């Protein structure tokens, strides 16, 4: 069983051919960036005037609530999950290897 295990390639190895196909990937990335730019310009038409921002500035409308409380809860959750991201990239390492 050990020999069989050693013979198998690393899952992090990728076929060399994929690197040769960078051009379509670059084109796709360029298309995504162009689409995002167009959307962003379109969103310029959507503005909320300063005098209309009272509710948006209210604490209950903050998308991630209290940032420090959210960070501590995320710390607990990520310590038990295989995933990461979507909130903050800051961190001090958690000795959690």
């Amino acid at each position, binding site marked *: 069983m050990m020999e069989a295990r050693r013979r198998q390639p690393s899952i992090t190895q990728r076929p060399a051919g994929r690197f040769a196909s960078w051009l379509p990937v670059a084109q796709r990335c360029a298309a995504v960036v162009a689409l995002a730019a167009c959307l962003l310009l379109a969103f310029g038409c*959507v503005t909320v005037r300063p005098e209309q921002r009272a509710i948006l500035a209210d604490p*209950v409308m903050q998308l991630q609530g209290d940032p420090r409380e959210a960070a501590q809860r995320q710390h607990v959750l990520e310590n*038990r999950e*295989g995933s990461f991201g979507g*909130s903050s990239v*800051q961190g001090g390492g958690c000795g959690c290897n």
Partner: protein
Amino acid sequence: MRTSPDPRRAAGIRRSGSNHPASRRGLLALVLTTVAWLLARTAGAQAAEVDSRVTLFHEPAKGSSMTVYTPSTDLTVRPWDFLAVTGGWEADIVSGASERVKTGPLSRAGPDAITGASVNDVRHIGRGSVTVRRDATQLRAGGSVSVENDYKSNAVHASARTDLFQHSSQLEIAYARNWDTVCDLAHAPNTDATLRQPLDNSTGCFQPNSATRSEAPIRTDALQLTWSQAWTPVLTTQVVYTGQLQAGLLSDPYRAVSLSPSGQYAQEHHPENRARQAIALRGAYYVRPLKGAVRAGVRGYRDTWHIMSGTFELEGEKYIFPWLRLRVTGRYYRQTAALFWSDDYTGGEPQYGPRGQYWSGDREVSPFSSYLAGARAVGTWAAGERRIVGIFEGLQAGLGFDVLFYGYSDFTLGGRKPSDTTAYIGSLSFTALF
């Protein structure tokens, strides 16, 4: 930034026994706090904020309960309107027990093979940041130092944010890098992974002349792009993309996995590289009749270990009194297994799952789902013409409680379902503005 599979390792949870001097622990926090305080005094601070909080995580279980206290204190001063300086300290204080050798349902060994090991450790983090804000632009840079018996971490982060279209759109880019070091057993050169034994305690870690301990680096880079958009006076959304690269010893040096029916086990062996991506979409909508807001979020995640996950969150928050608001939270999480995950590596090819050159006893890379339900109350008081108690410009206190349920579909300890599948999280916070 770094994550760990379970709270047992939330603070680098290893066995106690080392006698590292604690003289430098929290030193950075003390320095940063002092600098921030002096800056406030010399510059005639317009405002200073002290935030203290503690989070308690408790996981009751027969023989392997776990408790983690996480206290923290941060001081923020704003000597000028455009500048904010923050210094802080945080700790993870861990006590409990954990399994040392992971076996599966095919193991001939009985429950005795699942050795429980006590874990007690304290991790200290000192952190600081500087924020500069001008008109529609904000720049922030900071760093942190984390120390514990068997793990060291140095991290820096920087971000830039700008508002567009009369502040209706907001774009942010953030980057963070970690230089971490983890203690490991000093394996002989070229030792096959199947023959490596796990670390048994942290004694001797990070001592220059230790013949039994070695140090392994871990590098982490993370990039995050955020786009927030206000659509109407009561609707706002946010899209967040996060990418992360990890390289180094990404397995737990203390954990061993049973590899053969004869009982042979070896140190957990994970790939040394991992690329991770996540994209999250969240929104908040204010419901006028309720005098509160509804928030919803969804996140998708995928990495090069072939773990995919989805997260769904729903929150409601409203004012009970003008000074008191209440939030209720629900969260569902589900993930697939890593490509190399198996609940039992002793049964041939493959009886219980995929095989490869890696093996893991980590439930974090097994398929599972979790549910979270919680509530939090926050009271806020602002000073009028006179300061509160003659001292404070404002006060805020929060009290929260969450309960977590985990469902492991392909993770056992010697064929038995784990008993530590429920966890409780309590939090208490206090913020004062001077």
